[in-house]
């Protein structure tokens, strides 16, 4: 695992907590492979997905061109970080 990817994941966790107002979470509470959506993990919903798409474009200049791949990309912090690294 690259140092860059590790830093990126920590940054993503902090940005998600701030953007999605996850009041009860600290960066250390979120594991890289925790599910972001669904009943387990962070249990985010469709409005959060919209927020993450806006965050990707605003903070990293990355557009999600293929909405069908959204579910796969936004599965966890790990998959999100991998996607950002690939697109950078």
């Amino acid at each position, binding site marked *: 695992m690259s140092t860059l990817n590790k830093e990126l994941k920590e940054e993503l966790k902090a940005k998600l907590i701030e*953007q*999605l*107002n*996850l*009041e*009860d979470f600290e960066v250390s509470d979120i594991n890289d492979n925790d599910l972001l959506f669904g009943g387990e993990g962070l*249990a985010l919903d469709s*409005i959060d997905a*919209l*927020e993450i798409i*806006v965050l990707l*474009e*605003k903070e990293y200049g990355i557009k999600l061109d293929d909405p069908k791949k959204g579910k796969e990309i936004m599965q966890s912090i790990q998959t999100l970080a991998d996607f950002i690294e690939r697109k950078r």
Partner: protein
Amino acid sequence: MKLYIKSSDCVSAQQSFENSLPMEFISDTPALFYTCIQPEYKKFISPNLLRRMSPIIRNGVSCSMSVLKKAALQQPDAIIVGTALGCLKDTTSFLTQLIQDNENLPNPTHFIQSTHNTIAGQIALLLSCSAYNFTFSQNHNSFETALLDAQLLMLDQKANHVLVGGVDEMNELSYGLIKELYCYKNSKPGEGAAFFLLSTDKSKVEFKGVRIINGSTIDFNLELAGFGITWQDVDVLIGGDNDVKDSAYNDFAMYFYNKPYLWYKPFVGEYGTVSAQAFWLGTKIIEEQKIPACWSKNSLMPKEIKNVLIYNCIGNEHSLMLLGLNSDCPKM
């Protein structure tokens, strides 16, 4: 048909939520505007929903849930909310972001939550209630208009239990704009939420009516006749005076000279639906049949509390609301 207030609650700058009438006030006067003492939101709203709600939604929803809990009612037949300025915090966040980011990529949550009807909508969503759901924004008569709609709905026999309330919020940006526009020149702005369950079931407090008057003057004889009472029938007055000498209330005070007079705005602030706080105060003094001295403006106390008349006046917007004691109510 008679209508009653089955339960009520109030979020304000004083210790009002889930409480009896405060016997003393929090003495600190805020520098800019009054803010609410926050209820323990997590008692009423799950953390996952709470994180997206601005203070006005949190206060409105918590207050509503408390009212329904007190009435032991799962779902009302209608939800009617009055709000003068709606979700100001989300609106200002959304508009500020639009300006700062040159209209690119605004935050979707602020936009979704910025509409006036978000509060009534969130209450309905939490209750899975698909019944009649309305929000009224009529400046300083927003709560009164919501109340009037609830009354008409019930008199038309379309509802037996209506959740009705008034809620507004204040933030620093809005405060700045209000002062720039020379609004509330002689008063301190505030915020709050007060909700009520209006019901056809008997309770101690009867809701006798609301009258909304737009004009420079008000004919109290005529308006009282509309309620079917005279000045002698009124036991307690609740005025919207902002300070000891508030000229907007001169005529009202003169007309009802020497009657017990309560006030509340110097302790909770001025805002669009602040009359809902007076409605809560009126409800509580009838329920409890006592008036803590701190609420009295002229130190007069009534022998009994049967009829309470509430008067609010901002510019040309006037309203009168009448509450009465239902002496044959079942024990609460």
